[in-house]
């Protein structure tokens, strides 16, 4: 976490989540959405108190700070029989808000939590984003849409300073404060200034309830009468005093590890633990809108070398069940050895390669069936790569090289990023005509003996000790490698058809004068 001072020269945004502890729980457990939810916590002096309540529970008379026994008695009395009670977890609330901030980096490069004991709002810098989102309204719309899609309800406001943005988001329905003038804040209550409750009570007792009334008082006397915080907050609201966003930065690498108190010897247990770590890391990636293309799993053994497993994927869009199947297939192939003798003492999982998972839009004329089919193909490629090895499942790429052995490159389909559209352009390759090149190119040339006729054309060939008369010979086609490449290749290729109708691709090496069989049609 690092601090970035903001002086109000550029627009700031605040995303306020009303009843954040309730929202966080409802997003995690959607079945609670229609329940009257009450969160409680332990107070050192007053015992169990109501910490927060859902809007439906609030309507039933439950209020924060109410003793839990009173809330339970309401439920028992039969007036509110369906109240659901849960233990509050402020630490988890804070952590979840941080994780949400990490996810929202897609909307702003600088994002942090509001600086209170129990934060329920995020602060974002809007600097330089106007063009990307077609103005402030476009940005607010995009953020609202994303939050709504993920089950959150938030109020968003943009203003010239952090304090102003927080005040608007929490206490006003205005989403965007004007660039000039502070009149919009005059009607807001003094509590919008984030001052101590005691100061707020004092102001209310003096009949000062709105910020506009406070502005009428001499600024110099505010500090002596109400403390320095009030004047500072007013300056922060106006943007004349600096305020810091403690930005939340996304993690640099996505990994998880688990030291095992009791060494594991059972393969099934091992698989469960690995899956658990992978799921945890995958959820970290998902929060940032990323998906893994390559997983590295390291199993540390007692008094034995560690075992490294690499799981490569065709695409980052992957179901958990499928990922589990791939990991099981990998672990089945790994020789763990004598599990009793060399038990596994720790497991670590790392997403070694990851890419952004875009919410893929259906293309023109593409049906949902096509999407299902492409997902099936992804899963097939993953399965093939796991069982046979990533290097065995490839896509051929034809290169503009005249030498046949060098005219193809095999690209592994899994564990690699899809090149950007601009990088996909390759030099134009001359596609040979059909029957110009053999469909089967031998991995190694086979030395043959060739007899020539008077026209210096092949008329017979001895292959594997058998003589074949050549009925038809088409050629020669001269193929030479560049002078810069050593050793230089100079060959004369012939397409021949033997008298017993074998179609072969043979060549004479011009350096040695020897003949070779190179391909079969």
């Amino acid at each position, binding site marked *: 976490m690092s601090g970035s001072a903001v002086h109000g020269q550029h627009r700031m945004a605040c995303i306020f989540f009303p009843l954040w502890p309730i929202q966080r729980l409802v997003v995690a457990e959607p079945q609670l959405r229609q329940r009257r939810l009450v969160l409680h916590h332990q107070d050192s002096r007053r015992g169990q108190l109501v910490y927060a309540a859902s809007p439906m529970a609030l309507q039933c008379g439950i209020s924060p700070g109410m003793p839990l026994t009173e809330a339970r008695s309401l439920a028992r009395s039969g007036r509110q029989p369906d109240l659901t009670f849960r233990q509050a977890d402020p630490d988890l609330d804070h952590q979840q808000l941080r994780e949400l901030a990490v996810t929202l980096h897609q909307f702003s490069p600088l994002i942090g939590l509001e600086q209170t004991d129990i934060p329920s709002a995020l602060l974002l810098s809007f600097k330089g984003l106007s063009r990307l989102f077609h103005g402030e309204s476009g940005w607010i719309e995009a953020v609202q849409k994303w939050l709504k899609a993920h089950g959150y309800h938030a109020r968003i406001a943009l203003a010239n300073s952090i304090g102003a943005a927080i005040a608007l988001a929490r206490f006003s329905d205005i989403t965007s404060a004007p660039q000039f003038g502070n009149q919009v804040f005059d009607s807001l209550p003094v509590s919008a200034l984030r001052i101590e409750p005691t100061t707020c009570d004092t102001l209310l007792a003096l009949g000062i309830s709105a910020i506009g009334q406070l502005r009428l008082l001499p600024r110099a006397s505010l500090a002596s009468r109400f403390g320095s915080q009030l004047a500072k907050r007013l300056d922060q609201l106006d943007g004349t005093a600096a305020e810091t966003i403690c930005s939340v930065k996304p993690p640099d690498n996505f990994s998880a590890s688990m030291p095992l108190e009791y060494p594991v010897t059972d393969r099934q247990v091992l698989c469960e633990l690995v899956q658990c770590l992978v799921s945890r890391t995958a959820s970290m990636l998902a929060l940032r809108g990323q998906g893994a293309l390559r997983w590295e799993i390291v199993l540390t053994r007692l008094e034995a070398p560690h075992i490294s497993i690499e799981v490569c994927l065709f695409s980052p869009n992957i179901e958990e069940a499928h990922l589990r199947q791939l990991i099981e297939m990998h672990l089945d192939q790994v020789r763990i050895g004598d599990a009793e003798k060399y038990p596994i003492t720790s497991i670590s999982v790392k997403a070694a390669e990851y890419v952004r998972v875009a919410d893929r839009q259906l293309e023109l004329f593409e049906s949902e069936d*096509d999407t*299902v*089919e*492409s*997902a*099936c*193909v992804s*899963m*097939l*490629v993953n*399965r*093939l790569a796991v*069982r*046979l*090895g990533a*290097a*065995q*499942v*490839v*896509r*051929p*790429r*034809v290169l503009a090289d005249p030498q*046949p052995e060098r*005219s*193809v490159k*095999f690209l592994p*389909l899994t564990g690699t990023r899809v090149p950007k559209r601009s990088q996909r352009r390759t030099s134009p*390759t001359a*596609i*040979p*005509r*059909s*029957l*110009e*090149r*053999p*469909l*089967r*190119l*031998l*991995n190694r040339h086979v030395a043959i003996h060739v007899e020539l006729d008077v026209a210096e054309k092949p008329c017979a060939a001895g292959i594997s000790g058998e003589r074949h008369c050549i*009925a*038809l010979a*088409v050629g020669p086609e001269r193929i030479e490698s560049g002078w810069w490449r050593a050793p230089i290749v100079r060959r004369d290729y012939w397409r021949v*058809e*033997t*008298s*017993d*109708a*074998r*179609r*072969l691709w043979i060549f004479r090496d011009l350096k040695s004068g020897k003949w070779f069989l190179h*391909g*079969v*049609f």
Partner: protein
Amino acid sequence: MLPDHGYGRGTLVEFVSSQAGDLSLWLSLHLVAQAMKQHAGCVVLVDPARELFAPALVSIGIPAERTILVHAPTKEKNGRGEVAWHEGYWAINQSLGCKGITAVWGVVPTVDNRWLRRFQLSAELGGAIGVFIRPSTVLNYPTWSDIQWQVFSDPKRDSHQDGWRCRLRLTRARTGTGQELELMVHSQNGELMPAVLAEGSRPALQLEEPLVSSPGTAAAAHRSASKRWWNVA
């Protein structure tokens, strides 16, 4: 000649090769290319020996960007690398059962009949057309494939013909077996066409009777048969 006048989805087709270079490789991959023209999915080419030549594949109409090439790992045996064929069969079986795959091609030299049964069930499930090259030794054994062609090299050549000829015999199909067909691959454009001999010689092509059931002229039947020949229904 063929059931449904073409190759339906989920069909297994075998080309039984008599010898290397007899055009069975070309014919089988040409069928894959035709299937790809009609369906948008990918093709899986299971090539354990790593000998398929990609420029030639592209030239007959199998685009590289829609091709998934599967090589089988080699295992050291007696100091030599041996291809793990069973891994190739597993890959064929998995690919046949996958929706989104248009065709699966593979060399299946010797295989347990249970594998072929699995291929058949997977192809019915996934809808891909399976195209296999098999050695002539399999002719003596039963097969689960829907259609089996035996490919003969035809050494006869006419001086005016510019192409490579081959003869096919249908050795397994629902509609009957034993019928033969002579084809020629044009060397200039790579088109597959019925072989036509010089004027006055006996026509080697016998398409009309086995392929066309409805009445019509021989020429029309000839044309329609050549169009339908590689049609993937």
